[in-house]
Structures are given as C-alpha cells and as structure tokens.
C-alpha cells in the first residue's frame, strides 16, 4: 500500500479515528482507468473482496478479456492472464484443468463474451468447466467508442446504430445468461447489478457463491452484472443508472436464474426462452 496513505492512516488512528472502510488488499495500488460512474470499478472491488474473504488470494488465477477491462490484471493482486478477444473461457478451461486446486475466474464484457467469444462461452458452460465467469453487460462496446453490442436493446442508439437498433437489420438482443441457464453444464446462473448499495450487497453475495461453488466441482458458475456505460450512452452517471433501471432491467431482469443446478424458484423457463425484447426510447 502507498506509504503516504498508510502513514496518514496511522496518524488518524492515533487521533482516535476508527477504521470503518478500507480498500481490500486483493486490489493493487494502480489507479483504475475506468470512467467515473462505470460499474467495472465496483465489480472489480466485489470480486477482490470475495477473494480476500474466502482467503484464496494465493490460489486465484484471473483471465481478463479484450475490451474496457483488458487491463484488469493491473488492478487485482492475483496471478492473471490476458486472453485474446473472446477466448477467456477456453483459456480458463485449461488453467483449471491443469491446475485443479486453483480458483479460476474470467472477467468479460458483452462484446467479448456474447459476440466474438460466443462459441467459447457456450462450450465452456456446456462442458461444465469448474470455473467462475463474470459477465459485465452494459449493452454497448465501450472501449472502441460505443458501437452496437449483441446485448444492445431494440431502439437503443449506438455508434453503429445511430437511429436505434432495428430487429430487422440487427436481430434481437442476446440474452446469453438465460441461454446458458438451459445448459446442464451450468450450476449457478444469476444476473445482478451494482447501481446502488442494496444491489451491490446482492451482487457481492452472488459473486461469493460463484467462487465458493468451485469447491463443489459441480459445474460452471456464471454471474452477469448489469452496468451502465455512461460515456457510451452519452449520459451522466446518475442519468445512466436511472436509464439502466428503466430500460435494461425490464429486458434483463435481475435475480438468480439457476441455483445449485436447478432453475430458480419463480423463473418461467418458457418466458426465458420466448419473451420478445421491449423496445426502448433513447
């Protein structure tokens, strides 16, 4: 930890202050490059806290994608591999199979996981690889400048859908998480978000479960995190979170989809598969 910060902290403690909140040691000192208000920072922190709390920092191997979180390896103080675009699940498959005592997680965005890497995602899930996949879905390609993602909503504007996504032209938004829940190889499939403290708490519990599941060796654990992309959506962070709640969540409902290898209570499988997407105004 930065020595100045540590010294200042010691001073404050001497003055009678009490430490109520601190950065987890599983994150490094590196300053994150993410846009203010983006969900990546929070999601990174949750993953790091979970690794710390379970006490597996020395057993974790992370796999970062190509996209906004390409530099994730600089922020986590664990061993890390940077994969080619979309290939993180294949990379993680081999890490885990050759090192079964490690805890392996992938961290990918919607373009990486649900477009170019669709085959690797589905086959890793279908083989029931004993890994944790974190999927950050913001409905847009953030890094390359806001182009359409497979998860871009119908009507949603992007650099490559300047008049809004059209089904006849671009097809439907891809609900990868629901799709994966239908495969017998997945053990835990959930969708969470990180736009407010209550959501953050639930997301953290889900991430923790997804990591702890690796001890059970029963299949793949998959956590989708809905996030805003305020830069790509061209909104303030506050507006973006509101827009996410109003538009993303009806299309991508929050909650567990599959728990302990079974479709979660209250989830209608037919609706998962058949529901048509809602059109949004932007």
């Amino acid at each position: 930890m930065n020595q100045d910060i540590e010294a200042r902290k010691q001073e404050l403690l001497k003055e009678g202050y009490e430490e109520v909140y601190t950065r987890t040691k599983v994150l490094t000192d590196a300053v994150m490059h993410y846009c203010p208000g983006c969900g990546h920072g929070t999601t990174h922190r949750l993953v790091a806290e979970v690794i710390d709390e379970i006490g597996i920092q020395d057993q974790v191997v992370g796999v970062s994608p190509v996209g906004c979180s390409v530099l994730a390896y600089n922020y986590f103080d664990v061993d890390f591999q940077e994969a080619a675009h979309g290939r993180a699940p294949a990379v993680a498959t081999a890490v885990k199979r050759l090192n079964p005592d490690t805890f392996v997680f992938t961290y990918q965005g919607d373009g990486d996981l649900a477009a170019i890497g669709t085959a690797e995602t589905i086959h890793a899930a279908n083989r029931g690889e004993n890994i944790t996949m974190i999927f950050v879905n913001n409905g847009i390609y953030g890094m390359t400048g806001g182009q359409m993602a497979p998860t871009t909503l119908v009507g949603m504007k992007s650099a490559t859908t300047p008049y809004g996504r059209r089904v006849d032209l671009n097809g439907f938004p891809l609900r990868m998480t629901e799709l994966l829940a239908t495969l017998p190889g997945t053990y835990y499939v959930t969708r969470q978000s990180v736009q407010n403290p209550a959501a953050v708490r639930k997301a953290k519990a889900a991430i923790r479960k997804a990591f702890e599941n690796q001890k059970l060796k029963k299949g793949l654990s998959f956590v989708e995190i809905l996030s805003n992309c305020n830069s790509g959506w061209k909104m303030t962070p506050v507006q973006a979170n509101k827009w996410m709640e109003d538009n993303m969540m009806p299309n991508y409902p929050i909650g567990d989809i599959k728990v302990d290898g079974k479709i979660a209570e209250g989830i209608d499988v037919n609706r998962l598969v058949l529901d048509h997407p809602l059109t949004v105004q932007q």
Partner: protein
Amino acid sequence: MARELQLMKGNEAIARAMIASGTDGYFGYPITPQSEVMETLMAEKPWETTGMTVLQAESEVASINMVYGGAATGKKVATSSSSPGISLMQEGLTYLAGAEIPCLIVNVMRGGPGLGTIQPSQSDYFQSTKGGGHGDYQLYTLAPASVQEMYDFVFDAWDIAFKYRNPVLILSDGAIGQCMEKLYTRDNMPRWTEEERRKNAPWGTWGKPANRNHNIITSLELDSARQEVFNLKLQKKYDEMKEKEVRYEMLNCEDAEYIIVAYGSSSRIAMKAMQMAREKGIKVGLFRLITLFPFPTKQLAEVAAHVKGILCVEMSAGQMIEDVKLATKCGVKTEHFGRFGGIIPTPGEVLEALENKIIK
C-alpha cells in the same frame, strides 16, 4: 534409457512422444491428416499414467487458446492440427509469441488454399517462418523427415521452448504423419513436479504466493516506447536462436557439383533422386533443413560457394527458395521444383528437374 523398437505412424509417434516427454496437457480438434494424434492420446489414457490432461476442444481457435491458458501456468502444453486448422490458430500463436509462452504446436500439412486437399503438401512454409499472424514474431520451427524425428523432436521442442520462452512448431506433412516406420521409443519421463514447474517457469500463473508479486501473462503494452523495447528483446532472442539453435543435415555435399535443398518428406524424395543421380555419375549432394526458423543461412552459403547450381524441392509453388536465395545472395543458379495440391513429386521427376533446370 530403455529403447523399444516399434513400427508406428508419424502421427502416433507425436502422441506417444508427448506422453513420454512429460507433457502436461494436449488440446486439439480433429482434422485429417493428423487426427491420429488425439485418437492415440485418448486411447492411451495418459491421465491414468503420467497424469497428462487431454481434451477435445470445440475448435482450433479454442484449442490454441487452451494451450495459451495451460502453458501460461508454466506447464508443458501442446496442440496439433493441419493447415486449415493452423490458419485458425494464427491469432493464438501471435499472442503466445507476444506473451512469450513456451508451448508446442504440430502442423501436419495438407494442400491448400482454402479447404484444399487432405493430401500432403508443404505450402505453409511462409505461414510458419514469416509470421502467420500479425506482429514481428518467430516460431522455432522444426521439420522432421522421418517417424523417428517426429518422436525425437517433441523432446527437443520442450528444451527449446522453455530455454527461450518461445512457442515451438513442428512442421510436418501428411506423408510423414501417415507413414509407418521403425521407431525407437523411450521410457516415460515423469511430468514436472510442482517444485520443478516453479523453478522452470517462475513467470507462470498458478496462484500468487504471499512472498512474490502477482505474475501477469499478457501481450498488451499501450506505451509505444515500451512496446518497441519489448520488440527489440524478442529480436535479440531470435538472433540468439539463429546463432545457437540452427539444425541441418548434409549428405554427399563434400564433392557435390550440384545440391538439392529440401526439408521434411521432400528431402526423402530428394535423397532418392540424389542416389539416382550419383548412379548416373552426376555429383549431387543433399542439404536438408531441419530448422526452418532459424534458417541455416551461413552453413548453406558455405556449401553453395562450391557448387554450380541448387535445386530447391518443396511441395509448394516455391516458398523455401526465397530463403535459399537470400542465404546465397543469389550467387549461384537456383531453381525451384515442386508439385502441389497434394501431389508428391517422384524421385524421377526431381532428377529430371535437376538435369533440365540446373545442369543443362
């Protein structure tokens, strides 16, 4: 070391050598004419003996990225494929080279372009030695010419791969892959212990102990100045390979007036053509390339200085000939003879080409 004599296909020899050399993992996807590699591994069940992991991936793209993931943990990980599949792997290969990950790739070549033919060819020379993917990188490339070399080169590949932290390519073709020959096998070497892995691959990502910084495997560098420094480091490594790791074989080159340059199965055909020529009283030698990268530039130039002409024999439209001409600075008459599309030249054709294109 116990040496056991067997009769075996080249592809099977590759698989058995992987097991015997203590390979930790193999990830592949079926494609003719090399499917016997994975079939042999699956039949041998090495996970029950040496503890080797074998997995059939969903594609060559996945296979090479599994190699990336597994090898980046400091283990010996391999894949094999044939030309169209190797094309799919090019992205992974440039990432492996860029992240300096030791690993083994076997290409049992077939004819192209496109889906092409399943019959033997040598038309992937450029792809193998001139960087099939993007960026400035090289694969250490070994070209076996017999089943015994298919076997032995797997052992050699691991030494080179870890010595230089570089991917190694064994560039074979359907003829050597499918051909059965006599083979001396070796006893199984045990896979590396945990301690050996940590000693041989201190850069590996297997979980960060409290007493070291986290290891990162990446080929990304956003700072151009630092990326240039890294590129120079890679070039230095390749230069060292050129200095120390060149391999070749010379037959009858001492008194030769003409030489044939060839590698892999073409060199076998050329050897027969050389014998036929010698029977006719023509002094022909054979310069066989064993490493394609690094290319035996100096050694070939020395031989070329004393001959009247060079015939390059390759099952392609003429790829290797470019390196031959560079090595000899075009100082001697040099011509290409090749068949392609899966057609294997006959020794008679090679001799005829030598007589018509070089000697005449």
